[in-house]
């Protein structure tokens, strides 16, 4: 009898249920909203990181492309003057990491492109999001196909006189 009356009282006590249920509901909504908000900001940050990385790759790619063209033009000017290039060496200064990621730089001869790739993978597991291709042009010389990995400050673009090739190492 006592138990039934207690159960009936609890069932009828709408105020207490309302307050605790309301609190749990509010807390849950708040937590879920906060989690959704924060995770969406993380996604946004990741996207911004990739955007920055691509911009950086393009800046460095264009810089290298310009230097390759410069060396090629210098060789052409010297050859046209009947002269001979003894040596041309250009030191590439590339940062160890871009947007906190290691990266690789590939020099392709056919087609003539400099391909930057980030060491990190994006959320889909691929690298396409951060892969940047920058074309370069040479008329007299060719670039030895090679792949560099960030981490060293001493990248050199060297003109090999005997093979008429630009070697990057």
């Amino acid at each position, binding site marked *: 009898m006592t138990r039934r009356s207690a159960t009936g009282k609890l069932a009828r006590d709408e105020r207490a249920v309302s307050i605790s249920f309301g609190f749990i509901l509010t807390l849950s909504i708040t937590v879920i909203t906060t989690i959704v908000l924060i995770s969406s900001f993380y996604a946004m*940050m990741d996207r911004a990181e990739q955007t920055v990385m691509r911009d950086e790759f393009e800046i460095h790619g264009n810089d290298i492309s310009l230097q390759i063209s410069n060396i090629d033009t210098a060789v052409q000017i*010297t050859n046209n003057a009947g002269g001979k290039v003894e040596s*041309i060496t250009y030191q590439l200064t590339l940062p160890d990491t871009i947007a906190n990621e290691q990266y690789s730089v590939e020099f392709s001869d056919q087609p003539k492109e400099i391909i930057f790739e980030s060491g990190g993978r994006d959320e889909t597991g691929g690298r396409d999001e951060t892969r940047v291709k920058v074309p370069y042009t040479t008329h007299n010389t060719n670039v030895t196909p090679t792949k560099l990995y960030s981490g060293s400050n001493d990248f050199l673009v060297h003109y090999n006189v005997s093979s008429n090739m630009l070697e990057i190492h």
Partner: protein
Amino acid sequence: MKKWNDSAQMILIAGFAIGIGIVVLTVMLNNIIYASNTASEANIETNVFDFSSTMKVTTHAYEKAYEANSIDNAYIFNYTRKMAESYALAGFIFTLSNDSLQEPYLSQNGLNNGNSDWVVIDRVNRTDIFEIGINTSRLGNESKPFVIEALNQSGMFWSARICNSSGTFNLTVTNSTDILRTENIGGGSPSLNITNNTPFDFHFDTLTSGEQYRIRFTNGSQAGGTFSISGELTNGQPFEIKRYHVLSTTMSLNKNGHMEMNVTIPVTLPGGQI
């Protein structure tokens, strides 16, 4: 009492809104700062046009410094110092050195590995002086004779072919179809005055008269020698090209250790004005 309660709810909602606003602002600001911090400067060196003009200026300096079959070293020293000073402002170290004067070949750059077949002068209206000195000890054989040609729109109409034919140094003058003359020019370093017809008639003046033509050397790297040519171009401008010596000059540009460039350029002296 109820009013106060309602106000408290509003304050709570406002508090939440402000809190979320602060979080959003912080994350966005952090994003912006992060993006701007990761952007780095590109290190661009535009040196090619400087380099091209430096080569031209250096060639010109050697032409100026050439006096009476020698180089005025004081002039070159001064030039090097001035160039080093002006390049120093741009962060470059400029150095210049040269070999001694050498007897040239009749190739485009004056060296034996230079371009053999080349046009000495184009769009010629009249040639007043055309002297050439051949070093017969550096003359090619019959398979690679040194040839001087005058060409107009229709092709070659005068040529002089010089070669070493088993120790005999033969010169053959032809027009477009026939051999006009064959002479032995003798050993040593004979001087041939083509416009003055010395030591024999080259038929150059008579055949080139009234023509507009260009003068071409073929197999120039097969013959050592000097030449001097002057006259008038079709536009009425005078021209003068002389080559008595060739000198190899080595130019070096170094920028902060980032860029090093060493090139050797032959300079034919005393050069000329076209």
